[in-house]
Protein backbone atom coordinates (compact mmCIF):
# COMPACT_ATOMS: atom_id res chain seq x y z
CA UNK A 1 0.00 0.00 0.00
CA UNK A 2 1.49 3.35 -1.05
CA UNK A 3 1.81 6.23 1.46
CA UNK A 4 -0.83 8.17 -0.50
CA UNK A 5 -3.31 5.29 -0.36
CA UNK A 6 -2.66 4.84 3.38
CA UNK A 7 -3.35 8.56 3.96
CA UNK A 8 -6.52 8.53 1.89
CA UNK A 9 -7.74 5.47 3.80
CA UNK A 10 -7.14 7.37 7.06
CA UNK A 11 -9.24 10.25 5.76
CA UNK A 12 -11.99 7.80 4.87
CA UNK A 13 -12.35 7.10 8.60
CA UNK A 14 -14.47 10.26 8.52
CA UNK A 15 -17.20 8.14 6.91
CA UNK A 16 -19.52 5.81 8.85
CA UNK A 17 -18.21 2.24 9.12
CA UNK A 18 -21.08 0.89 7.02
CA UNK A 19 -20.29 3.15 4.09
CA UNK A 20 -16.57 2.47 4.39
CA UNK A 21 -17.23 -1.25 4.14
CA UNK A 22 -19.02 -0.86 0.80
CA UNK A 23 -17.37 2.19 -0.79
CA UNK A 24 -13.83 2.60 0.60
CA UNK A 25 -12.02 0.52 -2.04
CA UNK A 26 -13.90 2.16 -4.91
CA UNK A 27 -13.32 5.65 -3.51
CA UNK A 28 -9.61 4.98 -2.97
CA UNK A 29 -9.40 3.75 -6.57
CA UNK A 30 -10.92 7.01 -7.82
CA UNK A 31 -8.70 9.14 -5.56
CA UNK A 32 -5.53 7.36 -6.68
CA UNK A 33 -6.49 7.60 -10.32
CA UNK A 34 -7.04 11.35 -9.90
CA UNK A 35 -3.64 11.78 -8.21
CA UNK A 36 -0.62 12.99 -10.15
CA UNK A 37 2.39 10.77 -10.58
CA UNK A 38 4.64 10.74 -7.50
CA UNK A 39 2.05 12.41 -5.27
CA UNK A 40 2.52 11.39 -1.64
CA UNK A 41 0.09 13.66 0.19
CA UNK A 42 -3.67 13.94 -0.34
CA UNK A 43 -4.63 17.10 -2.20
CA UNK A 44 -6.27 19.77 -0.03
CA UNK A 45 -9.29 19.82 -2.35
CA UNK A 46 -9.88 16.07 -2.09
CA UNK A 47 -9.23 16.10 1.67
CA UNK A 48 -11.85 18.84 2.17
CA UNK A 49 -14.23 16.93 -0.11
CA UNK A 50 -13.81 13.80 2.03
CA UNK A 51 -14.29 15.83 5.23
CA UNK A 52 -17.52 17.36 3.94
CA UNK A 53 -18.71 14.05 2.46
CA UNK A 54 -17.95 12.13 5.66
CA UNK A 55 -19.75 14.60 7.89
CA UNK A 56 -22.70 14.70 5.50
CA UNK A 57 -22.91 10.89 5.48
CA UNK A 58 -22.77 10.77 9.30
CA UNK A 59 -25.39 13.46 9.71
CA UNK A 60 -27.66 11.59 7.27
CA UNK A 61 -27.19 8.43 9.31
CA UNK A 62 -27.79 10.29 12.57
CA UNK A 63 -31.10 11.67 11.31
CA UNK A 64 -32.12 8.38 9.71
CA UNK A 65 -35.43 7.05 11.01
CA UNK A 66 -33.68 3.94 12.34
CA UNK A 67 -31.70 6.20 14.69
CA UNK A 68 -34.75 7.84 16.28
CA UNK A 69 -34.99 5.12 18.93
CA UNK A 70 -31.31 5.54 19.74
CA UNK A 71 -31.65 9.28 20.35
CA UNK A 72 -34.82 8.81 22.39
CA UNK A 73 -33.15 6.21 24.56
CA UNK A 74 -30.28 8.65 25.10
CA UNK A 75 -32.69 11.41 26.14
CA UNK A 76 -34.44 8.99 28.49
CA UNK A 77 -31.16 7.91 30.09
CA UNK A 78 -30.06 11.55 30.45
CA UNK A 79 -33.43 12.49 31.95
CA UNK A 80 -33.23 9.65 34.45
CA UNK A 81 -29.69 10.77 35.29
CA UNK A 82 -30.82 14.34 36.02
CA UNK A 83 -33.79 13.06 38.00
CA UNK A 84 -31.53 10.69 39.96
CA UNK A 85 -29.20 13.55 40.87
CA UNK A 86 -32.09 15.80 41.87
CA UNK A 87 -33.55 12.98 43.97
CA UNK A 88 -30.15 12.51 45.63
CA UNK A 89 -30.14 16.20 46.51
CA UNK A 90 -33.65 15.86 47.94
CA UNK A 91 -32.62 12.87 50.05
CA UNK A 92 -29.69 14.90 51.37
CA UNK A 93 -31.93 17.86 52.29
CA UNK A 94 -34.53 15.59 53.92
CA UNK A 95 -31.78 13.88 55.96
CA UNK A 96 -30.41 17.26 57.05
CA UNK A 97 -33.88 18.50 58.04
CA UNK A 98 -34.53 15.34 60.06
CA UNK A 99 -31.22 15.51 61.92
CA UNK A 100 -31.48 19.26 62.52
CA UNK A 101 -35.21 20.21 62.63
CA UNK A 102 -34.51 23.71 63.95
CA UNK A 103 -32.69 24.81 60.81
CA UNK A 104 -33.77 23.89 57.29
CA UNK A 105 -31.19 24.45 54.55
CA UNK A 106 -33.98 24.86 52.02
CA UNK A 107 -37.11 26.20 53.70
CA UNK A 108 -38.76 27.53 50.54
CA UNK A 109 -39.98 24.19 49.19
CA UNK A 110 -42.31 22.08 51.36
CA UNK A 111 -40.95 18.59 51.95
CA UNK A 112 -43.96 16.70 50.48
CA UNK A 113 -43.19 18.30 47.11
CA UNK A 114 -39.53 17.31 47.37
CA UNK A 115 -40.48 13.79 48.44
CA UNK A 116 -42.76 13.66 45.38
CA UNK A 117 -39.70 14.07 43.17
CA UNK A 118 -38.09 10.97 44.68
CA UNK A 119 -41.36 9.05 44.27
CA UNK A 120 -41.55 10.20 40.64
CA UNK A 121 -38.02 8.96 40.07
CA UNK A 122 -38.79 5.55 41.59
CA UNK A 123 -41.95 5.27 39.45
CA UNK A 124 -39.95 6.15 36.32
CA UNK A 125 -37.36 3.47 37.13
CA UNK A 126 -40.13 0.94 37.69
CA UNK A 127 -41.38 1.70 34.18
CA UNK A 128 -44.58 3.50 35.24
CA UNK A 129 -43.81 6.39 32.90
CA UNK A 130 -47.29 7.94 32.75
CA UNK A 131 -47.78 8.07 36.53
CA UNK A 132 -44.19 9.25 37.00
CA UNK A 133 -44.77 12.01 34.46
CA UNK A 134 -47.89 13.24 36.28
CA UNK A 135 -46.22 13.17 39.72
CA UNK A 136 -43.09 14.91 38.44
CA UNK A 137 -45.03 17.58 36.56
CA UNK A 138 -47.05 18.40 39.70
CA UNK A 139 -43.82 18.55 41.75
CA UNK A 140 -42.08 20.74 39.17
CA UNK A 141 -45.00 23.19 39.23
CA UNK A 142 -45.01 23.13 43.04
CA UNK A 143 -41.28 23.77 43.28
CA UNK A 144 -41.35 26.57 40.71
CA UNK A 145 -44.21 28.30 42.55
CA UNK A 146 -42.48 27.81 45.90
CA UNK A 147 -39.18 29.23 44.64
CA UNK A 148 -40.94 32.18 43.03
CA UNK A 149 -42.90 33.05 46.20
CA UNK A 150 -42.00 36.56 47.47
CA UNK A 151 -41.15 35.34 50.96
CA UNK A 152 -38.79 32.63 49.73
CA UNK A 153 -35.83 35.00 49.68
CA UNK A 154 -35.06 38.22 47.84
CA UNK A 155 -32.76 36.86 45.13
CA UNK A 156 -35.05 33.89 44.43
CA UNK A 157 -37.94 36.10 43.48
CA UNK A 158 -36.07 37.05 40.31
CA UNK A 159 -37.91 35.26 37.46
CA UNK A 160 -34.75 34.29 35.59
CA UNK A 161 -33.21 32.86 38.75
CA UNK A 162 -36.41 30.92 39.38
CA UNK A 163 -36.13 29.57 35.84
CA UNK A 164 -32.46 28.69 36.45
CA UNK A 165 -33.41 26.64 39.50
CA UNK A 166 -36.47 25.11 37.85
CA UNK A 167 -34.48 23.74 34.88
CA UNK A 168 -33.38 20.83 37.06
CA UNK A 169 -36.99 19.86 37.78
CA UNK A 170 -38.58 20.56 34.42
CA UNK A 171 -36.02 18.84 32.22
CA UNK A 172 -36.70 15.32 33.58
CA UNK A 173 -40.38 15.95 32.89
CA UNK A 174 -39.55 16.81 29.27
CA UNK A 175 -37.27 13.75 29.00
CA UNK A 176 -40.01 11.48 30.29
CA UNK A 177 -42.53 13.07 27.95
CA UNK A 178 -40.16 12.28 25.05
CA UNK A 179 -39.84 8.65 26.07
CA UNK A 180 -43.61 8.40 26.53
CA UNK A 181 -44.00 9.18 22.84
CA UNK A 182 -41.25 6.80 21.82
CA UNK A 183 -41.86 3.50 20.09
CA UNK A 184 -38.79 2.12 21.83
CA UNK A 185 -39.59 1.80 25.49
CA UNK A 186 -37.65 -0.40 27.82
CA UNK A 187 -37.91 -0.65 31.57
CA UNK A 188 -34.76 0.89 33.06
CA UNK A 189 -32.47 -1.24 35.23
CA UNK A 190 -33.35 -1.26 38.92
CA UNK A 191 -29.74 -0.26 39.57
CA UNK A 192 -30.85 3.30 38.76
CA UNK A 193 -32.42 3.37 42.24
CA UNK A 194 -28.91 3.44 43.72
CA UNK A 195 -28.09 6.76 42.00
CA UNK A 196 -29.89 9.12 44.46
CA UNK A 197 -28.40 7.29 47.45
CA UNK A 198 -24.91 7.45 45.97
CA UNK A 199 -25.33 11.11 45.04
CA UNK A 200 -26.64 12.03 48.51
CA UNK A 201 -23.57 10.29 49.96
CA UNK A 202 -21.28 12.28 47.67
CA UNK A 203 -22.94 15.58 48.67
CA UNK A 204 -22.74 14.56 52.32
CA UNK A 205 -18.93 14.40 51.98
CA UNK A 206 -17.07 17.30 53.57
CA UNK A 207 -15.23 18.20 50.37
CA UNK A 208 -17.46 20.69 48.56
CA UNK A 209 -15.68 19.90 45.29
CA UNK A 210 -16.61 16.20 45.42
CA UNK A 211 -19.92 16.52 43.50
CA UNK A 212 -18.22 18.58 40.79
CA UNK A 213 -15.41 16.05 40.50
CA UNK A 214 -17.88 13.16 40.24
CA UNK A 215 -19.86 14.97 37.53
CA UNK A 216 -16.74 15.71 35.53
CA UNK A 217 -15.55 12.10 35.80
CA UNK A 218 -19.00 11.12 34.47
CA UNK A 219 -18.66 13.60 31.61
CA UNK A 220 -15.15 12.30 30.90
CA UNK A 221 -16.44 8.74 30.67
CA UNK A 222 -19.35 9.85 28.50
CA UNK A 223 -16.95 11.73 26.21
CA UNK A 224 -14.67 8.71 25.95
CA UNK A 225 -17.46 6.25 25.24
CA UNK A 226 -19.81 8.45 23.22
CA UNK A 227 -17.98 7.70 19.98
CA UNK A 228 -18.86 4.03 20.46
CA UNK A 229 -22.43 4.51 21.60
CA UNK A 230 -24.33 7.67 20.60
CA UNK A 231 -26.86 7.01 23.37
CA UNK A 232 -24.18 7.90 25.91
CA UNK A 233 -23.43 11.10 24.03
CA UNK A 234 -27.07 12.16 24.14
CA UNK A 235 -27.48 11.16 27.79
CA UNK A 236 -24.31 13.00 28.82
CA UNK A 237 -25.35 16.00 26.79
CA UNK A 238 -28.76 16.17 28.53
CA UNK A 239 -27.00 16.08 31.90
CA UNK A 240 -24.34 18.63 30.96
CA UNK A 241 -26.90 20.78 29.14
CA UNK A 242 -29.15 20.95 32.20
CA UNK A 243 -26.25 21.95 34.38
CA UNK A 244 -25.05 24.48 31.82
CA UNK A 245 -28.50 26.03 31.34
CA UNK A 246 -28.98 26.34 35.08
CA UNK A 247 -25.52 27.87 35.59
CA UNK A 248 -25.78 30.23 32.65
CA UNK A 249 -29.18 31.53 33.73
CA UNK A 250 -27.99 31.99 37.30
CA UNK A 251 -24.87 33.82 36.13
CA UNK A 252 -26.86 36.07 33.82
CA UNK A 253 -29.34 36.95 36.54
CA UNK A 254 -27.08 37.40 39.48
CA UNK A 255 -24.23 39.11 37.66
CA UNK A 256 -26.41 41.50 35.69
CA UNK A 257 -28.97 42.38 38.34
CA UNK A 258 -27.34 41.80 41.72
CA UNK A 259 -23.74 42.59 40.86
CA UNK A 260 -22.09 39.31 41.79
CA UNK A 261 -21.35 36.10 39.95
CA UNK A 262 -22.71 32.77 41.12
CA UNK A 263 -20.10 30.94 39.05
CA UNK A 264 -16.88 32.06 37.42
CA UNK A 265 -16.78 32.21 33.62
CA UNK A 266 -14.23 29.36 33.70
CA UNK A 267 -16.70 27.14 35.57
CA UNK A 268 -19.41 27.90 33.05
CA UNK A 269 -16.99 27.21 30.19
CA UNK A 270 -16.03 23.82 31.64
CA UNK A 271 -19.66 22.78 31.77
CA UNK A 272 -20.35 24.23 28.31
CA UNK A 273 -17.57 22.07 26.86
CA UNK A 274 -19.24 18.65 27.33
CA UNK A 275 -22.59 20.19 26.39
CA UNK A 276 -21.19 21.02 22.96
CA UNK A 277 -18.68 18.19 22.52
CA UNK A 278 -20.95 15.29 23.42
CA UNK A 279 -23.48 15.78 20.59
CA UNK A 280 -20.63 16.26 18.10
CA UNK A 281 -18.96 13.01 19.20
CA UNK A 282 -22.31 11.29 19.18
CA UNK A 283 -22.80 12.43 15.60
CA UNK A 284 -19.35 11.23 14.59
CA UNK A 285 -19.96 7.89 16.27
CA UNK A 286 -23.48 7.53 14.92
CA UNK A 287 -24.17 4.09 13.59
CA UNK A 288 -27.07 1.76 13.44
CA UNK A 289 -27.37 -0.10 16.71
CA UNK A 290 -28.99 -3.46 16.23
CA UNK A 291 -29.54 -4.07 19.94
CA UNK A 292 -31.65 -1.45 21.65
Amino acid at each position, binding site marked *: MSPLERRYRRLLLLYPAEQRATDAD*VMVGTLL*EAAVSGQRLPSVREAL*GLLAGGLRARSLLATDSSMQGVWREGVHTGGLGVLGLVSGGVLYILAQDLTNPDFSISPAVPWPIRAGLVIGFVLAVLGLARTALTVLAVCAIGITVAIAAPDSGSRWSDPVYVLAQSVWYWLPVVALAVIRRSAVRRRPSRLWLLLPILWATVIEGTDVMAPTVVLFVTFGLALGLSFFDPRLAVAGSVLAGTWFASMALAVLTLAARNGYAAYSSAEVAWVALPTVLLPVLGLLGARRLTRL
Partner: protein
Amino acid sequence: MHEPTYVVLAALLEGPLYGYAIVKTAEELSGGQVKLTAGTLYGALNRLCREGLVAEDHEEVVDGRKRRYYRLTETGVEALTSEADRLALLADAVRARLRPKSPSVAWS
Protein backbone atom coordinates in the same frame (compact mmCIF):
# COMPACT_ATOMS: atom_id res chain seq x y z
CA MET B 1 -31.37 19.80 -9.01
CA HIS B 2 -27.88 20.88 -7.96
CA GLU B 3 -25.23 21.37 -10.60
CA PRO B 4 -23.01 18.40 -9.56
CA THR B 5 -26.05 16.09 -9.61
CA TYR B 6 -27.04 17.39 -13.05
CA VAL B 7 -23.61 16.85 -14.58
CA VAL B 8 -23.21 13.41 -12.98
CA LEU B 9 -26.51 12.33 -14.53
CA ALA B 10 -25.54 13.94 -17.83
CA ALA B 11 -22.18 12.14 -17.80
CA LEU B 12 -23.94 8.80 -17.46
CA LEU B 13 -25.91 9.41 -20.67
CA GLU B 14 -22.90 7.97 -22.51
CA GLY B 15 -23.44 4.62 -20.81
CA PRO B 16 -22.19 2.99 -17.61
CA LEU B 17 -19.15 4.78 -16.18
CA TYR B 18 -16.95 4.30 -13.11
CA GLY B 19 -15.95 7.00 -10.59
CA TYR B 20 -12.94 8.63 -12.22
CA ALA B 21 -14.53 8.44 -15.69
CA ILE B 22 -17.58 10.28 -14.33
CA VAL B 23 -15.30 12.98 -12.86
CA LYS B 24 -13.53 13.50 -16.20
CA THR B 25 -16.73 13.41 -18.30
CA ALA B 26 -18.46 15.86 -15.94
CA GLU B 27 -15.49 18.22 -16.24
CA GLU B 28 -15.57 18.01 -20.04
CA LEU B 29 -19.34 18.49 -20.22
CA SER B 30 -19.18 21.60 -18.06
CA GLY B 31 -16.23 23.06 -19.94
CA GLY B 32 -14.04 22.68 -16.83
CA GLN B 33 -16.57 24.46 -14.60
CA VAL B 34 -17.46 21.42 -12.49
CA LYS B 35 -14.55 19.59 -10.88
CA LEU B 36 -15.97 16.86 -8.66
CA THR B 37 -14.03 15.59 -5.67
CA ALA B 38 -14.40 11.94 -4.69
CA GLY B 39 -16.32 13.01 -1.57
CA THR B 40 -18.86 14.99 -3.58
CA LEU B 41 -19.11 12.35 -6.32
CA TYR B 42 -19.83 9.37 -4.07
CA GLY B 43 -22.16 11.42 -1.88
CA ALA B 44 -24.15 12.30 -5.01
CA LEU B 45 -24.02 8.76 -6.43
CA ASN B 46 -25.24 7.18 -3.18
CA ARG B 47 -28.10 9.66 -2.99
CA LEU B 48 -29.02 9.14 -6.65
CA CYS B 49 -28.98 5.36 -6.11
CA ARG B 50 -31.33 5.74 -3.13
CA GLU B 51 -33.64 7.92 -5.24
CA GLY B 52 -33.58 5.37 -8.06
CA LEU B 53 -32.12 7.77 -10.66
CA VAL B 54 -28.87 5.81 -10.91
CA ALA B 55 -28.08 2.12 -10.37
CA GLU B 56 -24.90 0.15 -9.81
CA ASP B 57 -24.06 -1.74 -12.97
CA HIS B 58 -21.03 -3.95 -12.34
CA GLU B 59 -17.61 -3.94 -10.69
CA GLU B 60 -14.17 -4.80 -12.02
CA VAL B 61 -10.59 -4.60 -10.83
CA VAL B 62 -8.07 -2.82 -13.05
CA ASP B 63 -4.40 -2.52 -12.01
CA GLY B 64 -5.38 -3.67 -8.52
CA ARG B 65 -7.94 -0.86 -8.18
CA LYS B 66 -11.62 -1.56 -7.77
CA ARG B 67 -13.97 0.18 -10.18
CA ARG B 68 -17.73 0.30 -9.74
CA TYR B 69 -19.75 1.20 -12.80
CA TYR B 70 -22.97 3.19 -12.49
CA ARG B 71 -25.72 3.53 -15.07
CA LEU B 72 -28.65 5.86 -15.55
CA THR B 73 -32.09 4.34 -14.88
CA GLU B 74 -35.22 5.21 -16.84
CA THR B 75 -36.32 7.42 -13.96
CA GLY B 76 -32.93 9.10 -14.13
CA VAL B 77 -33.32 9.80 -17.85
CA GLU B 78 -36.78 11.28 -17.22
CA ALA B 79 -35.48 13.47 -14.37
CA LEU B 80 -32.55 14.65 -16.48
CA THR B 81 -34.79 15.42 -19.48
CA SER B 82 -37.17 17.38 -17.29
CA GLU B 83 -34.32 19.36 -15.73
CA ALA B 84 -32.70 20.05 -19.11
CA ASP B 85 -36.07 21.33 -20.46
CA ARG B 86 -36.53 23.53 -17.40
CA LEU B 87 -33.04 25.01 -17.75
CA ALA B 88 -33.53 25.55 -21.50
CA LEU B 89 -36.82 27.35 -20.88
CA LEU B 90 -35.18 29.53 -18.27
CA ALA B 91 -32.22 30.27 -20.56
CA ASP B 92 -34.56 31.19 -23.46
CA ALA B 93 -36.55 33.54 -21.25
CA VAL B 94 -33.39 35.29 -20.08
CA ARG B 95 -31.96 35.51 -23.62
CA ALA B 96 -35.20 37.05 -24.88
CA ARG B 97 -34.92 39.80 -22.28
CA LEU B 98 -31.24 40.33 -23.07
CA ARG B 99 -31.90 40.98 -26.80
CA PRO B 100 -31.12 44.61 -27.76
CA LYS B 101 -34.32 46.61 -27.72
CA SER B 102 -35.43 48.42 -30.93
CA PRO B 103 -34.32 52.11 -31.10
CA SER B 104 -37.88 53.43 -30.83
CA VAL B 105 -38.36 51.54 -27.58
CA ALA B 106 -34.97 52.49 -26.28
CA TRP B 107 -35.43 56.22 -27.05
CA SER B 108 -38.91 56.45 -25.66
